[in-house]
């Protein structure tokens, strides 16, 4: 297996493309691909462990994976085309439907991007409420990841413990904005719902109720020899490959790159909270597991600081009822649970955005699947898809 990066690094401008064909093109190859030894296995799109409608074509030599090709687009709903026919406020609910597991952070990204276009700033109280809800949504997203990831590797029970604790978060969302999953909690310019009276107590009760439960997840998995053997050294991604493939989020941090948009380019009220960024050492599935578990603890820390420091005051900035942002374009990105979620919005001065481009973390992280999975076994492909934590609603948009 020729090494990946020295191929493309030395591709001289004249030379046609890198040495190895990175993209596995089955049909148009001249020599027939399917000699006797290879078995082409079609995993998905209705496969129990592909986290939605992802189809992975595996080229197997016995159990070993020679190469993969991801076929996506089964859940493509044309969100960017919808955006061009809706006003800025109307497009807000559609954003929740992309990464439906972490809907709140999608909404936060979109509202902040439009606020940057409008040159408006959410008032401090709204910023704090937004940070609390986004961190709760990060914990909920990591819990769904842990549950399904453990289920793919065979441990049936963590899923139910994760979902029981996630229920508390969904109750807080329901009390706050009326919906559990596609919350549509924020509006452009701040929050529309005032924090309901038991809000602080519920968040604090969740925080100290959740930490011992998190230790139980660790007791079930972290030292379990079968779990360690199934995840250590599987799907290794070196830091320079991560950066080259544009991988972001916990996958990047597990490879040792200490980079988190909440610290690198702080947005909202993240600058006045202190929390660490957990990083891994050798970038395998076990490190990604540890990084995400530690991230949940850091989120609890942030929520505690935010709830204590919740300022009083208005929750909605002064913006016109009919939004007509000035002509121009901006790119704004936030640290979603899966990685860097970016919005590139071009406005032509009318009430409807001229172009909204969403940079989804899962779409770019999924590209790294082929590099991580070469030479592993079929059972590991399932573990690697789980550790990438992709959500197909976001991959296909």
């Amino acid at each position: 297996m020729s090494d990946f990066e020295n191929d493309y690094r030395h591709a001289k401008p004249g030379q046609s493309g890198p040495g190895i064909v990175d993209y596995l093109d089955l049909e148009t190859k001249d020599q027939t691909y399917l000699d006797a030894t290879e078995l082409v296995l079609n995993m998905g799109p209705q496969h129990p462990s592909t986290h939605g409608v992802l189809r992975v074509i595996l080229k197997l030599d016995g159990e070993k994976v020679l190469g993969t090709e991801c076929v996506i687009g089964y859940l493509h709903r044309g969100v960017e085309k919808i955006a061009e026919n809706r006003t800025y406020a109307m497009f807000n609910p559609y954003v929740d439907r992309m990464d439906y597991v972490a809907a709140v952070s999608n909404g936060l990204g979109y509202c902040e991007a439009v606020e940057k276009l409008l040159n408006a700033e959410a008032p401090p109280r709204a910023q704090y409420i937004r940070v609390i809800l986004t961190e709760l949504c990060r914990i909920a997203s990591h819990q769904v990841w842990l549950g399904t990831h453990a289920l793919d590797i065979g441990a049936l029970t963590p899923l139910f413990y994760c979902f029981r604790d996630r229920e508390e978060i969904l109750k807080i969302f329901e009390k706050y904005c009326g919906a559990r999953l596609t919350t549509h909690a924020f509006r452009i310019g701040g929050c529309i719902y005032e924090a309901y009276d038991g809000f602080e107590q519920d968040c604090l009760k969740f925080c100290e109720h959740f930490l011992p439960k998190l230790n139980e997840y660790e007791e079930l998995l972290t030292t379990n020899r079968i779990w360690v053997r199934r995840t250590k050294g599987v799907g290794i991604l070196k830091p320079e490959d991560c950066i080259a493939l544009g991988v972001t989020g916990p996958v990047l941090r597990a490879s040792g790159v200490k980079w988190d948009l909440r610290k690198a380019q702080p947005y909202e009220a993240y600058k006045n909270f202190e929390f660490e960024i957990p990083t891994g050492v050798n970038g395998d599935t076990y490190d990604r597991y540890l990084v995400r578990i530690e991230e949940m603890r850091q989120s609890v820390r942030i929520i505690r600081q935010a709830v204590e420091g919740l300022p009083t005051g208005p929750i909605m900035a002064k913006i016109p009822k009919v939004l007509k942002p000035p002509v121009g374009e901006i790119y704004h990105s936030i640290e979603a649970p899966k990685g860097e979620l970016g919005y590139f919005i071009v406005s032509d001065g009318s009430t409807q955005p001229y172009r909204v481009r969403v940079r989804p973390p899962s779409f770019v992280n999924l590209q790294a699947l082929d590099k991580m999975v070469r030479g592993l076994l079929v059972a590991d492909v399932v573990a690697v898809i789980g550790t990438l934590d992709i959500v197909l609603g976001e991959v296909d948009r």
Partner: protein
Amino acid sequence: MLDAITNYLHSNATPGEAGSMLWATIYILIIVIGISLAVIAMNWLERKILAHMQIRLGPMRVGPHGLLQPFADALKLLIKEDIIPENADKLVFWSAPVVVTMTAFTTFLVVPFGREHAVTDMNIGILFMLGVSSLGVLGIIMAGWSSNSHYPLMGSLRSSAQMVSYEIAMGLAIVCAVLMTSLQTGTGTLSMIGIVEAQAQQQTWFIFKMFPLGFLAFAIFAIAMVAETNRAPFDLPEAESELVAGFHTEYSGFRWSLFFLAEYAAMLAVSSIAVTLWLGGWMRPFPNWLNGGAWGLAFSFFPALTLFVLAGLCLLGAVRMPKIPQMKIQTAGLTMFGLLLGFIGLVLLAPGVRERVQDIYWFVVKVAFFMYLYIWYRGTFPRYRFDQLMKVGWKVLLPTGLGVLIATALWGLMPQISSSVARGLGVLP
């Protein structure tokens, strides 16, 4: 004709030994029905216990607390259409489940539920059980091969490799136990009833014999038996996440339920081997330490006691059932079930019955404990990858098995070795 029937009742030998074919068939029928009942109970227990471990309630709708769920499943499987894939190998496809179920049931021929409660007492009992249970692999390969599609093929190849490699570890552990039977009498025995009697003579269960070794052999067997039946951490062949459903993907309806039946029967068989060899088969705990008449009497009440406890649980459940019209039938059903259990408990109190049922009860309780272990493993452990599974089998269990075997042999021969060494050194004449 009549005395042919009655004279067996006076002899205290197994029907096979006593040569009365009639009673042997009756025993076989009892065992087959017993196993099916056990599988039905196991189906319900597995779903409920696994559910409660996962903080959910499990089946609650079909009958009170889901008690009729196994019957509903069985009915569904019988009614469901039995599809044979179109270019599957018809004969092999049809016969695979038959082979698997046949092997699973024949192993119960030699399982000793009591001193004389076994279909027959072969002198090569344990060897027979191992041989027949390894035939099950053949059925699985036939099933995988004849379904003519990727996933079953990979599933069946995997499970055959797994079973073969864990049978060796099982064999070694069993040889250690058989070695221990020869300590007192000088000649070991392969017959299951003989092994239990050897434990009775040596007045200790083999699990506690020569402390670390007996337990180690038992531990090796416990791990190997879980792998043998493709369960819990080793359930790779039907790992849902990769191979969709392993070797029985293409089966449906009654044929699939045969596989299901065979899997549970194999679990029961392998646990009964473990119970017979290491946990003293039908012997009640502390047979000689607490052997006074009073203790004997006290222990003999245990069967009735457990049934009364179960009946109490059912009645408690019925009382706590919500008082709404839809639930009326379910409460009635549960109370009836509770009363039935109570009645059986009463029957077991009768002195005549109490002695006879003693052995069977203790054997069944020990096997039930193993069944609970299976479910507990399934609820907790992730799944081994295939190569790791083979590594554990070959690189961990096999060497320790050999080590334990050699150590048991040395320990057993210690008196002779020391005397011959002493004679060699001239200490003894």
